[in-house]
């Protein structure tokens, strides 16, 4: 079996290269595209078989496979055995390849239907990316999951999975990030292909929007779940440390967010086309850079950069990407550029441009923070690092401006022409912000950033509520249905608009959670004997008991604390210290008393051997759970915004809202020999009522 996986992996490279050659030839002789598409299918089939082989090896615990031996053990549950597929370097590279191959099949089918002339170019780019990653699995260090253990005899048991990775968050987090990373390869291929083939942008923009949203959506989930995992398992009380791995997945998400906005601008106003194209390229490069940074060994220490065998591969690949993109942009960008200028600083267009500018600036700052130690080391000879202060000093004011824009943008009219509503709306929403500010100051909050953050959050929520309220009322009047039906109808018929607002609402809630838990965090620690008490803000911990236990793979010490709030008992927490003898690893498992107002986050740092005394650290993390709630709202909003419309269900043309003319451009290039309209189109961004 193992051999079959190996053979499949080895075959992917030549087949994708052959497909690439056929695709390039197909730009002259269109018939050859069938061969190229065949290669795309073939590669996908091979990647699927190789993945099944690895999965079977994992589940059957075939310890003669070095990867299985390294990441699983007999005592590991089935769910985590499956998640070991992406727990290590080699397996996660295979996952990358699998996703790339499957996405290529779907994307190529779509693009051949929607924009056939650019098909060969898109196929060529997708296959080139696939070929690169298949080469990595073959020639990279420790990157082939089908290597046998030395000696070839299966050991009795495997080494097991790091206990910290045995968490539901770690099953989802890497998978979601890879889905997001790989999805952003498609807009790159589609845009480059479309430009190269000189297709009109209306033909390929729907595909760009679709895949950019998919990439954005999964990167959002990946980052949020990663932050949640760090918070509940790592025990330091935070969720974001600004370390290179986290930054690596944040950057493409930020540029991806800007990209989604630029696509809206390009579709609705034919503006920001150069921005859009460059954002597609930059986001793709950042996903590659992120994959590169995340490869084990590089990320743990920035100073280990020079030792890694992947460096030349990634450098060459990223350079090639830059060169190809630059050539395509230089020779083709003029075909999609419009001469429209921003003529009004108080228009919706301007708000989009400012938003994108700030998102790009934040990305640049984060990138600076990641690369600075490398450059500073080379230039000054000294090793310099940037601690989290660097990132917060820059990102906090920029994030506040983003909050302001989130509230301002929906009130600003397109082109800035009709300002009749603006003054009234701004007075209403601005008023709520001022009231918030006054109330908070009166309550004793005198710190500038938190004050601004909460006031701007209220402003943005009020502004979004205004949009929902107005749409809802109009819908109810027009459709003459009940309130609930009208709300559902409004959301469903204008998914990208109201789903988008829901995403904005989620982002604001996330930022409120970050503000609360970052600005008002309290940390206390102390030694306690039985019955002893420790104050954490208005909460109080009482140490009740310590019990020792033993399981198959670990020894545990579990402490019990009673949590009271203003003298009233509200709950219990049980922080644990675990010791894994097989790996000689200690894990301090925190426990939380969790409410919407915040968490009491308790970790057991030490204990006396008789169990009578403990050393604990307790934190108060106000509003921290709004971070996860806001994340959930973002995910729901994302799902609504990207849910496809089935054209067959839409009765006739009358349902289509006005102003869709650009979107009809997808019909500019019907697939050869087929009159069938595309089966699926995506919800258009609706115009103002």
């Amino acid at each position: 079996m193992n051999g079959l996986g190996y053979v499949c992996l080895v075959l992917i490279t030549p087949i994708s290269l052959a497909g690439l050659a056929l695709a390039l030839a197909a730009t002259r002789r269109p018939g050859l595209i069938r061969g190229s598409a065949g290669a795309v299918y073939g590669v996908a089939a091979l990647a699927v078989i190789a993945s099944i082989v690895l999965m079977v090896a994992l589940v059957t615990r075939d310890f003669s496979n070095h990867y299985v031996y390294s990441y699983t053990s007999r005592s590991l549950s089935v769910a985590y055995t499956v998640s070991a597929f992406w727990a290590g370097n080699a397996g996660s590279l295979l996952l990358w390849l699998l996703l790339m191959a499957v996405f290529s099949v779907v994307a190529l089918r779509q693009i051949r239907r929607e924009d056939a002339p650019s098909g060969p170019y898109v196929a060529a780019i997708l296959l080139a990316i696939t070929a690169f990653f298949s080469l990595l699995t073959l020639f990279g260090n420790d990157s082939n999951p089908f290597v046998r253990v030395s000696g070839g005899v299966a050991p009795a048991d495997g080494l097991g999975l790091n206990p910290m990775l045995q968490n539901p968050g770690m099953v989802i987090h890497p998978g979601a990030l890879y889905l997001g990373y790989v999805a952003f390869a498609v807009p790159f291929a589609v845009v480059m292909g479309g430009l190269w083939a000189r297709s009109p942008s209306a033909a390929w923009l729907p595909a760009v929007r679709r895949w950019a949203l998919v990439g954005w959506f999964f990167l959002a989930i990946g980052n949020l779940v990663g932050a949640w995992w760090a918070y509940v398992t790592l025990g330091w009380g935070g969720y974001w440390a600004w370390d290179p791995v986290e930054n690596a997945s944040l950057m493409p998400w930020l540029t991806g967010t800007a990209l989604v906005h630029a696509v809206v601008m390009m579709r609705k106003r034919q503006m920001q086309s150069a921005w859009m194209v460059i954002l597609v390229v930059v986001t793709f490069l950042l996903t590659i850079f992120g994959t590169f940074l995340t490869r084990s060994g590089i990320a743990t220490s920035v100073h280990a950069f020079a030792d890694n065998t992947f460096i030349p591969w990634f450098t060459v690949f990223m350079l090639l990407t830059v060169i190809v993109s630059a050539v395509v942009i230089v020779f083709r960008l003029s075909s999609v550029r419009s001469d429209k200028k921003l003529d009004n600083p108080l228009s919706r267009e301007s708000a989009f441009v400012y938003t994108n500018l700030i998102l790009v600036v934040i990305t640049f700052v984060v990138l600076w923070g990641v690369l600075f130690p490398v450059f500073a080391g080379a230039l000054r000879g000294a090793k310099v690092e940037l601690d989290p202060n660097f990132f917060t000093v820059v990102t906090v004011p920029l994030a506040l401006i983003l909050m302001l824009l989130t509230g301002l943008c929906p009130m600003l009219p397109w082109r800035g022409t009709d300002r009749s509503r603006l003054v009234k709306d701004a007075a209403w929403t601005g008023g709520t912000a001022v009231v918030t500010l006054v109330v908070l100051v009166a309550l004793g909050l005198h710190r500038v950033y938190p004050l601004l953050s909460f006031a701007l959050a209220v402003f943005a929520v009020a502004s979004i509520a205004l949009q929902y309220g107005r749409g809802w009322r109009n819908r109810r009047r027009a459709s003459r249905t009940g309130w609930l039906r009208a709300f559902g109808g409004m959301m469903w018929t204008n998914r990208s608009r109201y789903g988008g607002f829901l995403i904005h609402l989620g982002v604001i809630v996330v930022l409120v959670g970050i503000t609360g838990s970052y600005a008002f965090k309290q940390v206390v620690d102390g030694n306690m004997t039985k019955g002893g008490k420790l104050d954490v803000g208005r909460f109080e911990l009482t140490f009740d008991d310590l019990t020792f236990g033993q399981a198959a793979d670990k020894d545990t010490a579990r402490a019990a604390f009673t949590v009271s709030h203003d003298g009233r008992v509200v709950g219990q927490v049980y922080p644990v210290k675990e010791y894994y003898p097989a790996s000689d690893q200690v894990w301090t498992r925190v426990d939380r008393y969790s409410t919407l107002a915040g968490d009491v986050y308790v970790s057991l740092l030490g204990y006396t051997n008789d169990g009578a005394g403990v050393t604990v650290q307790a934190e108060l993390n106000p509003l921290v759970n709004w971070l996860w709630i806001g994340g959930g709202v973002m995910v729901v909003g994302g799902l609504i915004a990207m849910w496809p419309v089935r054209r067959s269900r839409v009765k006739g043309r009358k349902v289509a809202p006005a102003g869709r003319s650009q979107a009809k451009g997808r019909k500019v290039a019907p697939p050869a020999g087929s009159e069938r309209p595309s089966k699926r189109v995506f919800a258009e961004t609706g115009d103002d009522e």
Partner: protein
Amino acid sequence: MIAVALGVLIWVAVGRGSVYYYTVSELLAKGPTPRVRVSGELVEGSVQGLGTTSLRFVIHDRDLPEQTIAVAYNGAIPDSFKDQPDTEVVAAGDFVAGQSFVATVLEAKCPSKYEAAP
């Protein structure tokens, strides 16, 4: 104007956020320094206070074992910190006179077969 504002912002942030990174012997040669990071290996038998929130230990460079720095750290001790001679420690804080280092952040790396999370 935006570029200038951004430049100033980054410049301020780099000033507030940069932390120099030294080995034990480099830091000893430099003398007392606030806000630095120092890396070294644990000196065998020097660890006191494991399991509490007040940790004391001594580190040195592998190739210059006679030069040492005593580190005092108050806070949660990372799980990866173990009383083993080959443990590599990175401490961030202030290097004060008299060869003692007051750490506010502590990281430890044990030679381990486990990989970092992907």
